[in-house]
């Protein structure tokens, strides 16, 4: 199998890349290529112009900004898995990375590619929602703008980025309090998950909930999160019964569909179980960390 014929440009700077993207109606960005190239090999994607951003140095930067970490769009999965700065800022990133594909895929795949591809069963979009990451996108004619995660994912494999826009930087607020955990169920190691649950919990001195966040993947057309539901649990005492209750309420709030991989009912049940377990583990770690 070969990809269909395409024009190829390899810009050396962001400005050149944005020019190239603006020059064609039919341009596609090539980052790690771990989703795009199989789609092209199978002729599911036929871009007229491929803009290879792999040689733009500024997109590879990792920068500690105090309260936030700036990750260039070209930071690769294996770096997310191993970089100490990333682990310190948002420990859920390396934890999730071990669930993503296989080592050979993680060598090439990028954070920007994963978020822009917007597969609702992928891990990083779930973390983006949970961690309230901000996506900075650039275009030749529109300059720069920042899109919060909750406005970034539009539907299956679709984001709110325009065709001439390039995701350049991801701003990750550092996780300062509490602890977090991610769980998923996949039929085989490295497969896309049938369901993903990520949770972040911080507790008050008396064991009641100070903050709780939870997000689900694989259960809809975009990663799922409901802040109103989250805030209804603040102040409640953390307990196994509570984690089960949250799992149940979240499972009722989602609207998964049947597909060839799993029924909606199976996905709903997985979401409930995975979220309950995630919350339980995150709370346990939060307690250990605060020495209670």
């Amino acid at each position, binding site marked *: *199998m*070969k*990809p*269909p*014929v*395409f*024009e*190829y440009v*390899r810009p050396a700077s962001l400005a050149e890349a944005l020019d190239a993207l603006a020059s064609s109606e039919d341009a596609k960005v*090539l980052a790690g*290529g*771990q989703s795009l*190239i*199989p789609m092209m*090999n*199978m002729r599911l994607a036929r871009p007229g112009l*491929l803009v*290879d951003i*792999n040689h733009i140095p500024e997109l590879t930067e990792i920068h500690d900004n105090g309260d936030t970490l700036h990750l260039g769009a070209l930071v690769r999965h*294996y770096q997310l898995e191993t970089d100490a700065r990333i682990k310190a800022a948002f420990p859920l990133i390396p934890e999730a990375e071990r669930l993503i*594909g*296989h*080592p*050979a*895929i993680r*060598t*090439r795949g990028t954070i920007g590619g994963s978020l822009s591809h917007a597969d609702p069963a992928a891990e990083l979009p779930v973390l983006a929602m949970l961690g309230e990451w901000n996506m900075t996108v650039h275009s030749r004619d529109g300059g720069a703008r920042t899109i919060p995660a909750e406005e970034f994912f539009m539907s299956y494999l679709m984001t709110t980025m325009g065709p001439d826009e390039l995701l350049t930087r991801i701003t990750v607020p550092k996780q300062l309090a509490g602890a977090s955990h991610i769980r998923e169920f996949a039929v*085989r*190691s*490295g497969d896309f998950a049938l369901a993903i649950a990520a949770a972040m919990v911080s507790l008050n001195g008396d064991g009641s909930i100070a903050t709780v966040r939870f997000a689900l993947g694989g259960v809809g057309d975009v990663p799922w999160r409901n802040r109103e539901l989250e805030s209804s649990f603040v102040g409640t005492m953390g307990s196994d019964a509570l984690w089960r209750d949250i799992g149940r309420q979240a499972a009722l709030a989602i609207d998964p569909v049947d597909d060839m991989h799993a029924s909606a009912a199976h996905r709903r049940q997985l979401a409930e179980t995975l979220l309950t377990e995630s919350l339980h583990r995150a709370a346990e770690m939060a307690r250990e960390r605060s020495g209670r």
Partner: protein
Amino acid sequence: MPNITLTVNGTQHRLEVDPRWLLADVLREQLNLTGTHLGCEQGVCGACTILLNGRPARSCLTLAVTADGSDIITVEGLAHNGQLHPVQEAFWQEHALQCGFCTPGFLITSVHFLSENPNPTREEIREALSGNLCRCTGYQHIVNAVERASETMRKGATHAVPQD
């Protein structure tokens, strides 16, 4: 057609490639390194795995043109001076292959894995090899081979990652 430079198994090549050519095809068709096999051509089977700048990568999911300037090791680069790499030797000793189609990808993946984790558990070996599919062996002998290679390599039997 763009010109690219690839260093493959220590030899530098200046090549003219069509942008749509996959790295696997360039290795096989232009450099005649047919040890790199193409199974699924969608990143699932792992047969085409090569070392790209020291890390395992799917050569079927990498355009040759984007690998310009890279350092590549294929299965042909594992043996040195007629001596099999300890991982190859262990695959032979443990009967870790039948038809052999998937073997190049398993070898490359294992060589890199053992360089990062020289003393793995069987479970870690299985996880590390989960991106490589074998339809013959049932994996048992492959896991045995990687375990055996880790033992011989810990005893100091030559380099973990080939150097040129």
